[in-house]
């Protein structure tokens, strides 16, 4: 499990955010990585100037890749025009966290399947009702 934090040039981030994210995803997938979670931090003021940039947008990505592929992934990000700076860190504890993140993002898309423990008690009977209705109709 790896965690990548990318500092993205603000000019690109404000104009063409989607293409930047797609570019990063493409680089990861080209190297056989499986993306688990993508999170935008938003625009922040940098603690010091980097290549003349005073502000930048951060993007956090959790991904799963072979250890042999990480070196090429890092080099590809260094060559990228959009990315000012990147940090890839190995972390085996992400697994639990990112699983929560994945389920949350999945829950946003299809509302019926929210496996959040707090809402579970409410969500489960609704789901069963739906399935029963479907069964009756079918």
């Amino acid at each position, binding site marked *: 499990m790896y965690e990548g934090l990318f500092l993205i040039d603000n000019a690109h981030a404000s104009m063409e955010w989607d293409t930047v994210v797609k570019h990063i995803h493409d680089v990861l997938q080209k190297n056989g990585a499986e993306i688990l979670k993508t999170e935008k931090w938003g625009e922040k003021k940098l603690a010091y100037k*980097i290549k003349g940039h005073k502000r930048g947008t951060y993007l956090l990505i959790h991904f799963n890749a072979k250890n042999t592929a990480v070196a090429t992934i890092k080099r590809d990000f260094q060559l990228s025009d959009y990315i000012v700076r990147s940090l890839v860190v190995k972390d085996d504890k992400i697994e639990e966290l990112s699983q929560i993140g994945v389920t949350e993002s999945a829950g946003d898309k299809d509302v019926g399947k929210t496996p959040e423990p707090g809402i579970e008690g409410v969500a489960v009977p609704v789901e069963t009702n739906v399935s029963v209705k479907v069964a009756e109709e079918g």
Partner: protein
Amino acid sequence: MTKKRFNKTSKCRFCRMGIDEVDYKDIQNLQKLTTTQGKLFSRKRSGNCAHHQHSVKASIKRARFMALLPYVT
């Protein structure tokens, strides 16, 4: 007769919070462990145990690289 131990709770803030490894993205906590100049606090000053002081050192350096924390102010 042995002396009673008064200080039973750990001095290390991360041991008390039950955090195993310090996260470099947690800037608010890391900033408490640096001086106003941005230097790291000593183990004596921060009260951290050896394990967590190592972890803090690594994560502050990562945060500095990503311009989340300053090298010098």
